[in-house]
């Protein structure tokens, strides 16, 4: 029976993916992609990855969708020009053949997977007690594979620096994007006043729940970033100046604190990012707390994009 649900979701997912790729215009394609992102979180639930489903629901359905829609709105007729560059039948059939070949090879690999499947779940369960957290995924993210998480935070900061570096002459350090305006008594402003308080509570709840249940800083930070973007999109606040010292400090504070905790581990537990016994949970919580503002800032600023105007100083 459960197969019927999975099958329905899977077929819809494939149909949306095809639509996204072959739709004629960019807007329907992006609309299809947002639908696809929402559906992906159902797939993750079917795969028993609630933590991943949360991340996908927040990022795939929300942030990426809004980002791409914003981009489609600024294409300014480049679509028609690109149409003339549409590749010929030869290349298209080559692409089709290549895609089919890749899919076939992957499918063969899936069908030839070893039984029983290799897993490190028992090791995680065995050692989870030492970290003091109850959610094995949080344990992996911040203890067993903490180095990955540290590097990820650094990658996010670098991506943000990359986006900022594209600023045109004279706009460096200015405000990103365009100023949004809306009727202060309008529906949009109303929604942007009502939703963020709820979103902030849900975000903090997910952050708090993340230690023992599905949830955690990424999901929470995404919700908070989306709420901030909502306020900006409704014109209730302008996007921040990117040369604001507090803002820049917040962006680097998380990775720096992470590295500091890592060095502390080097001194006290003999390994970078090692945690001395009994101190594991407080140190994990400290990293999470420090990473939180960084993640919110970086995700929201990535959404905002390249600084484009000097703004009012």
């Amino acid at each position, binding site marked *: *029976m*459960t197969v*019927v*649900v999975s099958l*329905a979701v899977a077929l*819809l997912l494939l149909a*949306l993916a095809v*639509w996204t790729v072959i739709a004629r215009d960019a*807007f*329907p394609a992006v*609309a*299809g992609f*947002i*639908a696809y992102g*929402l559906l992906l*979180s*159902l797939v993750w*639930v*079917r795969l028993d990855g*609630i933590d991943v*489903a*949360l991340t996908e*629901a*927040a990022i795939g*359905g*929300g942030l990426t*969708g*809004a980002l791409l*829609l*914003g981009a*489609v*709105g600024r294409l300014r007729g480049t679509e028609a020009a690109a149409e003339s560059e549409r590749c010929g039948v030869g290349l298209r059939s080559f692409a089709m053949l290549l895609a089919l070949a890749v899919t076939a090879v992957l499918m063969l690999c899936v069908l030839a997977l070893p039984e029983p499947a290799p897993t490190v779940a028992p090791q995680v369960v065995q050692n989870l007690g030492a970290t003091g957290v109850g959610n094995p995924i949080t344990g992996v993210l911040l203890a067993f594979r903490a180095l990955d998480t540290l590097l990820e935070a650094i990658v996010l900061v670098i991506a943000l620096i990359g986006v900022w570096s594209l600023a045109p002459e004279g706009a460096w350090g200015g405000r990103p994007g*365009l*100023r*949004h*305006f*809306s*009727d202060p008594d*309008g529906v*949009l402003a109303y*929604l*942007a006043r009502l*939703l963020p308080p709820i*979103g902030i509570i*849900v975000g903090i709840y*997910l952050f708090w729940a993340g230690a023992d*249940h*599905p*949830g955690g800083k990424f*999901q929470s930070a*995404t*919700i908070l970033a*989306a*709420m901030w*973007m*909502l306020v900006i999109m*409704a014109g209730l606040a302008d996007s921040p100046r990117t040369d604001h010292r507090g803002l820049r400090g917040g962006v680097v504070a998380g990775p720096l604190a992470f590295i500091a905790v890592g060095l502390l581990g080097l001194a006290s537990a003999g390994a970078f990012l090692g945690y001395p016994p009994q101190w594991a949970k407080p140190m994990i919580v400290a990293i999470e707390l420090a990473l939180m503002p960084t993640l919110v800032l970086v995700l929201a600023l990535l959404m905002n994009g390249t600084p*484009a*105007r000097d703004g*009012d100083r």
Partner: protein
Amino acid sequence: MAEFLLWMAAFVVLMVALGLLRVARGPGRAERMMAAQLLGSGAIGALLLIGAAAGEPSVVDVALTLALLSAFAGVAFVKFAVRQDRQAEDDGAGRVSAPGRPRRSALEREARKVVQ
């Protein structure tokens, strides 16, 4: 009970899929903007049903996240559409003088983005 919940989840997904046909056919942007709405509520309903069937309380959190973020996506859709209309109107104003054009509405101010 779990069996029934899963069937209902499949039913809701099917309904959303059929609704998406309208979205794909258009004809206008309004139909496509409804997509975010339809998918949001459909996915949330299906998630709640699947979560209850599996006895997994955390799935409710996923639905909660989806509810917040699909509202956000919906706003992004509307802002996009209004902005496109304004661009179209500006283009039109450049070419033809239309004396009978309606005066700028509150919504338009809502959509206006000005480079300072």
